[in-house]
């Protein structure tokens, strides 16, 4: 396994990272972060060399402490990781969101988020964190600096996906078992509505202009397309009964939605205009891709493969796998951060 010792990690020359979506960037100057839920660490992959350049230890108790969802701060300096354990109802000190300084791999702060936080999102101004609290059917809002819990919201049973609209006004949280999305007014800290989406909604992503949101429905085998101005489903991309969509990422132009097919070990490519599946990538894919991320220039996809402990690297031109890289145990989520000297 390509994992460097912690001492090596600490010596990494990662200076700072900038938010992916806000920059025009050189092709290679980014790092890919992969949370390993069974290894209790985060693998850092170089976009330039496709090599592992570091491992950030979350806990010395792998198999007990469970890092899953991740988000990058807008200034790119911090990666937030939602951490829980494998016992959904046990309230432990592990239930938290941890902020890690990318430059030093050191933990900056730990924010208590009781209730098995599964995924996390950051507001566009970086001031607030939002977490889905799976065990208690709630979502939580937190001050990113002080860690203060600002509010909690009833979401539905088994909250999972969480995303903040690009203008910072709305927060969408999915509820797996209730099959709903909860809409939170991020300024007023109030619940606006709940609406049904596809069966077992997992992940939600907003389009760059904030007009649409996409919600993956794992058991429904589809992606619900939401008109954000109405908070209502306006279309559905049907991928098939056994497509198991989970993680998603949009191309920089927003014309393609890449969907991780979880248990099908496939990546689905959806045309966001026609909502048709234009390609299913299966050959040489790692097993159980749970999440997918797009490089800043849109040329490359990275998938976190939970059952093969690997990342598949996909060329978006040929829509084919060009490499598979060993990472930690049980890759769950994947995010990309851009180095500042890329500008």
């Amino acid at each position, binding site marked *: 396994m390509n994992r460097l010792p912690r001492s090596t990690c600490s010596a990494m020359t990662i200076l700072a990272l900038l938010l992916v979506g806000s920059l025009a960037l050189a092709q290679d100057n980014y790092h890919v972060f992969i949370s390993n839920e069974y290894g209790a660490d985060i693998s850092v992959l170089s976009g330039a060399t496709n090599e592992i350049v570091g491992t950030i230890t979350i806990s010395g108790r792998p198999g007990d402490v469970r890092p899953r969802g991740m988000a990058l701060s807008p200034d790119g300096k911090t990666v937030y990781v939602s951490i829980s354990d494998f016992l959904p*109802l046990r309230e432990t000190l592990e239930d938290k969101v941890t902020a890690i300084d990318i430059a030093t791999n050191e933990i900056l702060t730990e924010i208590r988020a009781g209730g098995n936080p599964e995924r996390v999102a950051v507001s566009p101004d970086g001031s607030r964190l939002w977490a889905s609290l799976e065990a208690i059917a709630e979502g939580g809002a937190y001050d990113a600096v002080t860690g203060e819990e600002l509010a909690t919201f009833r979401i539905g049973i088994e909250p999972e996906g969480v995303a903040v609209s690009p203008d910072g006004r709305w927060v969408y949280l999915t509820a797996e078992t209730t099959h709903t999305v909860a809409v939170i007014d991020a300024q007023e800290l109030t*619940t606006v509505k*709940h609406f049904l989406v596809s069966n077992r909604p997992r992940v939600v992503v907003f389009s760059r202009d904030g007009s649409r949101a996409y919600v993956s429905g794992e058991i429904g085998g589809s992606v619900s397309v939401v008109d954000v101005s109405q908070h209502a489903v306006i279309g559905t991309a049907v991928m098939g009964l*056994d497509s198991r969509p989970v993680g998603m990422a949009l191309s920089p132009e927003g014309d393609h939605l890449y969907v991780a097919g979880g*248990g*099908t070990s496939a990546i689905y490519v959806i045309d966001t205009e026609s909502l048709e599946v234009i390609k299913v990538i299966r050959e040489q894919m790692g097993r159980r891709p749970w999440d997918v991320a797009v490089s800043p220039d849109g040329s490359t996809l990275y998938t976190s493969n939970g059952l093969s402990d690997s990342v598949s690297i996909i060329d978006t031109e040929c829509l084919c796998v060009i490499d598979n890289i060993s990472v930690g145990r049980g890759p769950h989520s994947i995010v990309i951060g851009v180095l500042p000297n890329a500008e």
Partner: protein
Amino acid sequence: MVSVVLLLAGFAGTALGQTPGVDLPIRIGALLPAVPESGGAPFDFAVAEAARLAAGMAADEFGFNSEILGLDFALLTEHAADTEALLEAAGRLIDEEGVFALLGGFGTEQALALSALAEERQIPFLNIGASSDSLRNEACSRFTFHFAPSDAMYLDALVGWFVRAGFRRWFFVHEDDPERESQYRRTTWSIRNRHFGAREVGRIALAPGTSDFGRAINAARRNDAEVILLLLEPEAQLAFLEQYETAGLEAQVTGFPDLGAQTRAFFLASRDAALKAGSGFRSTAWEATLDAYGARELNARFLGSFGSPMEYSAWAVLQAVKVLFEAATFGGLLEGEEVVAYLESSTSVFDVYKGIGISFRPWDHQLRQSIYLVDIRPEAEGPRDAVLLVGELPAIYMPRTDPVERLDQIGDTERESKCRF
């Protein structure tokens, strides 16, 4: 007496109001077994108590879902000791409470009675407790949907596991009644038609209530059986195992998973009756240690709420309510014919925590689903660690194969079905 487990007033008109296309109250009727007095049959108690607890959990969870969606929902439960009382209660739920669907059917007799009532009143009925193949064939009804796996599904799964593990010489011990005879015939059909290389080496039919299994054990020994399938009531299975252990045979023994024989209480009793022979493989429709597909969270919620592992009957109650609730919310339907059409549609997919979107077979309304294989642990200390989950059939993770065909590997196919709606 009607027990309104939870009745939540509608929230329509509030800021949260939105979405599902159903304005009328969603009322579901659950006909559950009466919980026996202490000292009664332990397995019946386990089944009934788990169902009762699950009804409370279903009321809470779907009450919560209804509240955030601005809907008016109630799960109305009745506990009936016999079929006459059951029908009376069911009629009351329909006429006075306005339920749009029923669930129940703990045993063939109750399921048949509720199926007939549902057909007469034109409302859907979800059978969650009767596995009899006759309900899915000659006695099928368009208004009845079978949440419980069929005899054929359990038996196909059992035969599949044992044959693949190398146990090919089958001996049968069954009660001499039509249902057990039917199970015997279905198993031998499965062996002949789906598992070449395996064969029946003998069988013995015993009068119900038989307590001396010496003749059956000797016959199994004479015929050099490799696996013995007990098509007996749970208590009779235990009695057989106790005598079999003393006889010292080496053949594997398993039994038909009647509801009582899928409970933790039965698994522990089996181990206690015969440490070696009673600690073998069993099939179940749900397993409390299932750790994938969101089942981890579901099982944890039940365990956390009640302190006991989720039995099959609990899972079935909860998931049947879920399916009916989703028919109302996703389909926006409460009228009998419309709900039936929704449930039987090939495009209606349900999530029952088994890791794959499932549907009802159009030819007999049987729910497609996996069956689990568990191994009773000799060293078990209590209900929580009573078994080890060792298998799933059909295996659902088989990318690039058709999921419906995958699930239809067990049970009666359309060609074999005698159901005509």
